C-alpha cells in the first residue's frame, strides 16, 4: 500500500499568506526530501532532512521520524511559488528507494 500520504492535494493561497503541507508515512523512513515541480516538469530540490528542521527563506521543513511525518511550511507566499510540491521519503534498510507522495498543487493568487 501507499507508504507516503501527502495532503492537501490542492491548495490556494492569497499572496502574502502562508500554509503547511504534510506527509504522513506508514512505515519508518530514514530521510525525507521536498521538491517543487516547475511547469516544465523539472524537480527542484527544496529540502533534504534526516531529522529536525531546516529553513530556507520563506520555506521551512520539519521531519519527525519517530512520529512518521514531515511538513513543509510556506510563509508570505508569492506568485512564483505556484506549482506542484512533492515530498519523497527514503525507506529504511539497505536499499535507497525514494517513495513519492501524491503531490500538492499550490496556486498563489493575487
Amino acid at each position, binding site marked *: 500500500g501507499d507508504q507516503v500520504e501527502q495532503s492537501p492535494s490542492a491548495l490556494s493561497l492569497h499572496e502574502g499568506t502562508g500554509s503547511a503541507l504534510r506527509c504522513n508515512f506508514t512505515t519508518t523512513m530514514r530521510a525525507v526530501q521536498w*521538491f517543487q515541480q516547475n511547469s516544465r516538469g*523539472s524537480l527542484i530540490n527544496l529540502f*533534504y532532512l534526516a531529522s529536525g528542521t531546516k529553513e530556507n527563506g520563506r520555506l521551512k521543513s520539519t521531519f519527525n521520524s519517530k512520529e512518521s511525518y514531515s511538513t513543509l511550511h510556506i510563509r508570505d507566499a508569492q506568485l512564483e511559488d505556484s506549482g506542484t510540491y512533492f515530498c519523497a521519503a527514503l525507506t529504511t534498510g539497505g*536499499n535507497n*528507494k525514494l*517513495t513519492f507522495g*501524491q*503531490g500538492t498543487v499550490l496556486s498563489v493568487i493575487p
Partner: protein
Amino acid sequence: GALVYQYPRRTICKSGTSMRMECQAVGFQATSVAWYRQSPQKTFELIALSTVNSAIKYEQNFTQEKFPISHPNLSFSSMTVLNAYLEDRGLYLCGARRENSDYTFGSGTRLLVI
C-alpha cells in the same frame, strides 16, 4: 553543486519503436540511480533502482525486457523504452544519489508515442 543532465528533453516515437534516454551526473559520484515515470495523474512510479555493486532492481509492473537500464560508471546511466506504446507515454525522470545524501533529478524526458 550536484547536477544531473538528462536528455533528450522531449521525444516522439512511433508506436512499436524504441527510444533511449540518458542521464549524466556532474559534480558528484552517483552511487545510486533511480528511474521514475510520472503518470498523467502526476504520481511517480519507480521503474528501477540501480546501486553500484548491486543488481538493478525493478519494481513490480516493470521489467528489464521492457526498460533495460545501464549504469556503467558513477556518472552515467541510460534507460531504453523498448516497443513503446500509448501506455508508455509520460515524463521519465532519473534521480541520482551519492552515499548518505539526497537525490538530485534530471529535467526529465517527455515521451510521446504516436
